[in-house]
């Protein structure tokens, strides 16, 4: 009887140990999911960019200078390119396009100018961020040279004319006849200083 009871205890102990092992295993697996998903949250940042680059869904044009290599100019089509500017909250600059729209043929190279003036008494560094509408036209809007590739420092009351050289890709979908390019100007002085 006594013997049986202690055997019972031994087998019970073995059961407890086996349970501990399987508990630890499950915890480890679940912790892997936790860390994996934490990483996935951050991985969504580059994934989102890649996804949008491929599809042009968010209207974010490429931030890299394109090389002009259009072999032909498609004079059959005329695209209207409109320019919009706005200043973000808190930057005391005048910022506007020097022409509101321009007609281009796909493949044709054009240069337009934008005007910016620092109307405050402080030196400010501005950064223009482009956005293209409709979003799916973004990948076909090629900037050869753009003031938005770099930040633009302006001393107090200083003004500047800034150039944009671009062409519209020949592969632009047929149903797009108007492209709107919008620039938002941000004050990035504090992040440049630090």
């Amino acid at each position, binding site marked *: 009887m006594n013997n049986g009871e202690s055997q019972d205890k031994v087998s019970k102990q073995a059961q407890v140990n086996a349970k501990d092992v399987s508990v630890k295993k499950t915890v480890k697996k*679940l912790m892997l999911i*936790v860390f*994996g998903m934490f990483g996935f*949250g951050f991985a969504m940042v580059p994934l*989102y960019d890649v996804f949008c680059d491929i599809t042009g869904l968010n209207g974010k044009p490429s931030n890299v200078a394109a090389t002009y290599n259009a072999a032909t100019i498609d004079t059959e089509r005329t695209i209207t390119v409109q320019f919009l500017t706005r200043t973000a909250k808190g930057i005391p600059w005048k910022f506007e396009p020097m022409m509101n729209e321009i007609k281009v043929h796909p493949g044709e190279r054009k240069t337009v100018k934008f005007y910016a003036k620092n109307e405050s008494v402080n030196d400010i560094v501005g950064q223009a961020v482009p956005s293209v509408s409709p979003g799916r036209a973004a990948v076909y809007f090629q900037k050869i040279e753009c003031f938005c590739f770099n930040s633009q420092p302006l001393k107090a009351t200083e003004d500047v004319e800034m150039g944009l050289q671009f062409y519209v890709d020949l592969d632009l979908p047929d149903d797009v006849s108007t492209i709107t390019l919008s620039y938002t100007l*941000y004050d990035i002085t504090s992040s440049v200083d630090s």
Partner: protein
Amino acid sequence: MTTDAINDQPEHDSHDGEHHDHKMTGLKRWLYTTNHKDIGSMYLWFSFIMFLTGGVMALVIRAELFQPGLQIIEPDFFNQMTTVHGLIMVFGAIMPAFTGLANWMLPMMVGAPDMALPRLNNWSFWILPFAFAILLSSFFMESGAPNFGWTFYAPLSTTYSNGSTAFFVFAVHIMGISSIMGAINIVVTIMNMRAPGMTYMKMPLFVWTFFITAYLLIAVMPVLAGTVTMVLTDTYFGTSFFDAAGGGDPVMFQHIFWFFGHPEVYIMILPAFGIVSTTIPAFSRKKLFGYSSMVYATASIAFLSFIVWAHHMFTTGMPLFGELFFMYCTMLIAVPTGVKVFNWAATMWRGSISFETPMLFSIAFVILFTIGGFSGLMLAMTPVDFQYHDTYFVVAHFHYVLVTGALFSIFAGAYYWLPKWTGYMYNDTLSKWHFWCSLISVNLLFFPMHFLGLAGMPRRIPDYALQFADFNKWVSIGGFAFGLSQLIFLVLVIKCVKGGEKAPAKPWDGAEGLEWTVPSPAPYHTFETPPKID
């Protein structure tokens, strides 16, 4: 020890673990406890305190909105109220209440002596009060509490933050850690601690829904932690995850947030399904209709919840294909949800139903949750969502699913198991008062919001146009009535803890499950030797 047949064990068998020690007294008992019943009670009390705290904020909001114009509070403080009300109700009231129910009931339902990781359990509860202390402390700072909405959209929470972002972020981090640990504990307990013979498809549906919910938590709470971390570094360390000036994208914030946020809403409703799937069969005196279809429906809702997040973002300028994809996926969720509602109705069909308070709350849940589900379907349709977006229609929708849905199910569960927890029957008259006052006032509170939304009243504003005045007056009256009705529940629970009619081991004749095989109140330690399941 107990005299119950299943739990009848000699004393000397129960000294092989520290959590079997005799309970300490006073504050130390609660600080050091690793007992699932103690921790469950603490979770439930904590969530009720948070519910009242968030409720007071809701009343401040409703007081301001009683009349058009600015009467009582400034717009900035109004925004703080809506933000913290949302955060507290989601992370402080509903989620801890479910965790509390899980702690109390899961081990008993699967025939386990305790949760698998009792110390972790203690810790996951005790960090919660600190999280909410951090969040609420921001009210006493110069800058004020978070005012950017509980969804903390960038750039409101980053560029335009009032300085409370750090408090908010660290509070959410701690809440997230607590939820993740709680969820790990639930999964590990269910996978490893079931009594011999209890196969997965023999588990009560309550256990199944918590099992699936815990997986959802494990999958998305880390994403929330990542999101708030990005908001933190954007605000204070000069990164540009969501800042267009630095090459980031504020719309991306919404994608990452709702990738967490949509599964989160199912985290708050799947356990509710589990609770009413327990109570409705008990008071219909029939087995749950379509048990396995319930399990599969829960699992498919959980799966679908990961691929519908962008229906919160129809107006951000998505391409047509994206809008169609997310619209159809969202509508697809109505199918498994419909299966559930059908099964509850079929369970009641020709049952011998009695209307005890848990059943009243459960029936109210089925009807009112379905109303919330239908308004959800309306919101899922992209073309009409452009009209409903950010109006009171949305507010009406999610309060129907969260208040008359999740909260009512918690009340149903609380009434159902109160005799098991306290050993006494609750005061039946008070409970009926609580139910009928809540039912009438909650509909007065939320139903007119549908009309306000359809008429175009935007949400999250302290003032409104004159034509909305009448409805808002009634909504506010309903709000105060609903808030006060909850004090009946507080009185009832205190009375029930103190005494009353002695509860038998199984006070509901139709109830099924292992928890009713132990006496009432449930002894401090149950199922130290696993019960036999056939």
